């Protein structure tokens, strides 16, 4: 079961960020998650009915921005990683983001070229009529080494996989994990532990639903000032630290 994020419009946070940058100035250092969310929601409204995939894209963007924001927020917190942690200054974070956006743009450009190439090559159809009847008997035996039992095992395996898939899908459909409940459970764990990593929260072999809902939960806790987040590099583990919210931070 793979979890795929794709929309007709954006192909991930870099794509979205490029689009936003092309429309206006973006202050990465003082990124406002809510501002970006507003812009994005506006965009979605103009586009078509809300699509879960599209909404997921926003999450990815939020993650990218959080990474940058966190790197500018965290140095003020206790540095439990010690001196080795080479924290990026906001300026460095911006430079890094720009470099990555430019690299992404380069591949977006070359992808367009490849697409054009594929289309023009696709106008030529290879001959694959194959050989005439009289030579068919000389063809190699494609089933050499394949036994009937082997075939049965392959089929049984597939059906098993399908059964597991359906069971899980059923579970997802009938008992979605509620974000509120999950955020509360993460908050409780965090209060007890003080510090915990995203991966530790997920446990072994999490399904995509759990990953998504846990991620949403930590964003929620961050927003409520109940946790601080640190991620050293994109796709690396996110570390949550419990935080007592100031009164004004609370609703």
């Amino acid at each position: 079961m793979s979890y795929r994020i794709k929309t007709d419009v954006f192909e991930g946070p870099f794509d979205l960020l490029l689009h936003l940058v092309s429309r206006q100035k973006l202050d990465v250092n003082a990124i406002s998650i809510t501002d970006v969310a507003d812009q994005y929601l506006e965009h979605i409204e103009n586009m078509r009915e809300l699509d879960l995939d599209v909404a997921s894209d926003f999450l990815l963007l939020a993650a990218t921005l959080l990474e940058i924001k966190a790197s500018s927020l965290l140095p003020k917190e206790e540095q439990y990683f010690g001196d080795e942690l080479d924290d990026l200054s906001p300026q460095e974070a911006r430079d890094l983001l720009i470099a990555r956006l430019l690299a992404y743009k380069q591949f977006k450009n070359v992808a367009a070229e490849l697409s054009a190439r594929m289309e023009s090559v696709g106008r030529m159809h290879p001959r694959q009529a194959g050989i005439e009847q009289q030579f068919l008997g000389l063809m190699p035996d494609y089933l050499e080494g394949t036994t009937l039992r082997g075939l049965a095992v392959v089929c049984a395996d597939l059906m098993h996989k399908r059964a597991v898939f359906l069971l899980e899908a059923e579970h997802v459909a009938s008992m979605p994990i509620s974000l509120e409940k999950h955020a509360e459970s993460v908050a409780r764990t965090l209060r007890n532990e003080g510090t915990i990593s995203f991966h530790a929260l997920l446990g072994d072999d999490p399904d995509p639903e759990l990953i998504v809902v846990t991620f949403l939960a930590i964003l929620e806790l961050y927003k409520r000032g109940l946790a601080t987040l640190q991620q050293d590099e994109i796709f690396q583990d996110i570390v949550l630290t419990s935080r007592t919210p100031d009164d004004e931070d609370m609703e």
Partner: protein
Amino acid sequence: MTVSVQLKGAIEALLFVSDEPVSIARIARVLEKDEKSVSAALRQIADDYVAAERGFQLREVAGGWRFYTHPAHHDLIEQYVLSWDTRKLSQAALEALAVVAYHQPVTRQGINAVRGVNSEGVVSSLVEKSLVREVGKDRSQGNAILYGTTRMFLEKFGLKDLGELPPLEEFAPDPDVENAIKQRLHSVGDESATQDDDVEEID
């Protein structure tokens, strides 16, 4: 009758991607030309190849026109075909074949559903290798093509008929595995059930 190079080219291209004889009527229809000019063009093309001593020819056989290799090279082709490596079936092809064998008649959609991935290319290649063939259409599914195994498939495995395929139950997954899955799903359910009490706590 003079025949345009363009018409000849179009006919050549059509026949080039066909692996069976194509009738003049069909070519005329596709090209929106009259049969007479198509017929004249076909003859000219065939003559062109003879004149240039090409390694292939265009021949009229029962049912239409088709490209063939020139008989002068047949010994060579035999040798060449014999030299082909035994290209074993890919895992994807083997999976699709297994699904067709046990679930026939089955649509492509059905094969996809069991394999969990798109099987279009794979099924086409099995048809090309004469291991799988179209056996009908499924009216309930918008006339989707139904696939089944071929006689060649039975012969390769020395089966008299499909009833001789080993029963799948023999290969069913280990009951322990199945229990583990059920348990895991069950426990997730329990966990969220106990949390029902503190829904109000947040927000």
